[in-house]
């Protein structure tokens, strides 16, 4: 696949050079399979095979881009896309800076993250997994929902500057299974991310669902009082906050535009708890990490927050050109951030529930539909979802209705942070809105914060 894509791009490169065009040429290919479940049935079983070309023409302080979705062999249409970018370029208004054309110094191909057995799992394999993960958990009221997205993504990019390319191929699966009560309107879930077939573990999914099911069937449901509470966030919720932190805290362009919690003078300052170390780079297992960026720069793993100290901002080439900064090797389809684990040897919900405690703890595995109330304050609002539990200080467990928090990132990862689990896990953050692009964050399995303010408390499920 990658070879065919590169040959196609080399042919287009020749075509562009014949027209004295400076351009970056990229091909994306996805073969996706998504099985959706609702009310115990498969509600949709879909496959998509889509090829996308992007041509960005570069000129004197200007760029223009033409994109095309077509077949991989539609070379004539692709040449027309090159022509289109070339025709648009003179009409682009001049920028205040010179955009940098990629000049890839050597070929870089990475297929270590591709497992054909996962990418081509097929309907039978997906349904076998689902059957194992849900075995014995459903009944007349409790039915299974969810989605199993699996597939392969291939990417190849080069420019007219050199004949070298950067290419990669990844397999990935993103699985969410939901057990829902039609009668009581509650939902619990389990999620898994996979990069190879060996990562699939339906029994772990079943264990998690079974534990939560037992709690939700047997424990008292309660409405929480408004006000401060100690919260232990699960991996999904922690990943949600980390995702915001990676942008509102570390993105150089956001900082320059006033959409960051930091300013340039914060570099070298302790801005978050000393427990917070955030890295980004290729040494991030399970997070679909890429060794080389689209400019051919080899990437290393760096701590951007080091024990709470901000070490710098992330600059892709475009932002670096615009703001006269040095690019940091982040012209990528996706980043691979990791919040390093802490020292608390409590690494799953069962252990948390069994651990002694001197105050009530609200376990929040997942945050639904969060919103940025104020980017410069890092103020995020969101609602708990999917299997929250109230772990009473006397050892009892209750099932709370969902609650809303509106908290600042600098508090979540700063003064309100009590502890992080000693083990981390990967949380899949892939979106299926556009073209397939597997992404994930590595986060501690649990994160405990104090004084989280409950501002809305639902009266029912």
């Amino acid at each position, binding site marked *: 696949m990658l070879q065919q894509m590169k040959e196609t791009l080399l042919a287009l490169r020749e075509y562009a050079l014949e027209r004295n065009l400076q351009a970056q040429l990229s091909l994306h290919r996805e073969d*996706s399979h998504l099985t*959706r*479940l*609702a*009310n*115990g049935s*498969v509600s*949709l*079983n*879909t*496959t*998509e*095979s*889509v*090829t*996308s070309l992007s041509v960005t023409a570069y000129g004197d302080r200007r760029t*223009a*881009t*033409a*994109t*095309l*979705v*077509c*077949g*991989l*062999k*539609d070379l004539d249409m692709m040449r027309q896309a090159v022509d289109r970018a070339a025709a648009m370029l003179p*009409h682009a208004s001049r*920028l*205040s*800076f010179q955009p940098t054309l990629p000049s890839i110094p050597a070929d870089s191909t990475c297929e270590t993250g591709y497992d054909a057995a996962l990418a081509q799992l097929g*309907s039978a394999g997906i*349904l076998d997994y*689902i059957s194992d993960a849900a075995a014995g958990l459903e009944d007349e009221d409790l*039915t299974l929902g969810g*989605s199993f*997205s699996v597939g392969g993504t291939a990417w190849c990019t080069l420019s007219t500057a050199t004949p070298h390319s950067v290419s990669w191929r990844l397999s990935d699966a993103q699985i969410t299974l*939901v057990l829902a009560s*039609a009668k009581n309107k509650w*939902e619990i879930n389990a999620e898994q991310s996979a990069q190879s077939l060996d990562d699939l573990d339906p029994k772990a999914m079943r264990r998690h669902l079974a534990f939560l099911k037992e709690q939700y069937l047997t424990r008292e449901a309660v409405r929480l009082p408004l006000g401060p509470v100690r919260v232990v966030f699960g991996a999904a919720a922690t990943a949600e906050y980390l995702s915001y932190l990676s942008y509102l805290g570390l993105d150089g362009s956001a900082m320059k535009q*006033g*959409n960051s919690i930091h300013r340039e003078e914060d570099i070298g300052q302790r801005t978050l708890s000393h427990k917070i170390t955030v890295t980004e780079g290729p040494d991030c297992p399970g997070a679909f990490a890429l060794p080389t960026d689209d400019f051919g720069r080899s990437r290393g793993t760096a701590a951007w927050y080091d024990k709470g100290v901000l070490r710098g901002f992330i600059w892709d080439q475009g932002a670096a050109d*615009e703001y006269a900064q040095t690019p940091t090797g982040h012209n990528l389809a996706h980043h691979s951030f990791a919040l390093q684990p802490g020292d608390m040897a409590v690494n799953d919900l069962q252990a948390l529930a069994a651990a002694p405690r001197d105050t009530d703890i609200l376990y929040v595995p997942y945050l*639904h*539909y969060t919103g940025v*109330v*104020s980017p*410069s304050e890092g*103020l995020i*609002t969101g*609602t708990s979802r999917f299997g929250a539990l109230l772990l009473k200080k006397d050892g009892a467990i209750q099932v709370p209705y*969902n609650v*809303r928090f*509106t908290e600042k990132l600098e508090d979540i990862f700063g003064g309100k942070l009590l502890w992080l689990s000693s083990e981390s896990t990967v949380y899949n953050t892939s979106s*299926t*809105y556009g073209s397939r692009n597997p992404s994930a964050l590595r986060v501690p399995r649990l994160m405990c914060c104090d004084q989280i303010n409950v*501002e*809305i408390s*639902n009266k029912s*499920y």
Partner: protein
Amino acid sequence: MTHPWKEELNKLLLQGASYADVRYTPREDSAALVMRNGNLLAFSAGGERGFGVRVLYQGAWGFAASSDLGSITATFARALDNAKSTARRLSRPIRLADKQVHTGRFTSPCLVDPAQVPYDEQVAFLRRVDTALQQTGVEQRMIFLRTQSRLTEYYDTQGAQIVKEIREIFPYLGIQGRDGDGETQSRRYSPPRLGSTRGWEIMQADFFEEQAARMVRELNETLAAPKCPSDVRSVILMPDIMYLQVHETIGHPLELDRILGYELSYAGGSFVRLSDFGALRYGTDKLTVRADATMENSPGSFGYDDDGVEAQNNLLIKDGILVGAITSRQMVTEANDKMGREYFKGSGGTARASSFRRTPLERMTNISVDPGTDGTLEDIIAKTEKGIVLSGDKSWSIGSNREQFHFANHYGYLVEDGQKKGVVRSCAYSGETLPFYNSLAMVGDERTWQVEFVPNCGKGMPSQTMQLGHGVPVCRFDNVKVGE
């Protein structure tokens, strides 16, 4: 080029399929221009073609899509295989509600196709508006223009043949500055429906310059203002936030697939139960809401949905009582079965897919609040003892069953004893959906009513972004929690 869509559909019937349809997009052209602080950072044009096949086999759906027109037969076979695999785990075979079979064509109203406007003219327009935004107090300026032209052919095994050609144009302006505490404040503008067509003819530079001047004035008022109080008071929602309130807490919770649990794993469910239809008091008797896909000139009007059902105008809430839902052929039969009666008389014609590579889902059309009888904004203010007028959709967050919400706004000013008072910054309000609509105290008349466009409503797995509209008046709600 002619493609064998009907032959391939007939082959599926011969192989045991009970129904199938294909959507073929021979051409989709799009463009995006992004200018930030005077720099044209994105200047892109896109082309797309492909097809998607949906097959119903023994009551189970299969779908396959491809951008490769050399793989038509293989893709149809894949869709059937996917349906056959689905049948292995199926507790309730899908039945589609009856429909009238149509042969038809729909073209959205457009005088000047944006794709035919010279690039220089488009860029010059952005530059002119950017100049208008470049004023004291403004630290960041953003202008975004997205256009789209899609031709879709629809065929199904029942004999329908529908061609749709829909053109969209979505301009957007945004500015930011820093207040005295160093926090970012912003003001944005996306035009509502501006007439009976929506092509390049709506891009009147004078009009956008006027909007730019208003945005700059309001931003500077906000930058100098004290913080919004945190208390309980009446909120008067302008159409540019009322539309989002309706979108998130009436539109989404009344999608029948959500109510039936089809979105639980991702987008969420709904607090509405099937037993609520015809009985639930959603709001005060001032609240009447409809799903009107026949409205003139809106992205939520499309002629025929992607089930091939003709667009309709259906009541959702009548005088405060829940009476209808956003429905498709599949969901109404399931809902009626579960209700034990034929409450839904047929598809509401709202099955829409965002592209050839996605399957149709229940999507909003134009979910609109009927205008009321409480006059103008000034009339409403005059009758408000302690309130705040809120404008702009700065942020939004909604509970998973749409039972509660938190919205932040760009611009607001206080109202006391029927008088406008000072502007405040960092405005936000929150509440619970049913108590909120049951506190609806005043609904502005036709003079306050306008159709807001939504270019980016997200839903589904695989995820889809859809365009739609909301006709909304100025509304006042009492006893609402205000403040971040």
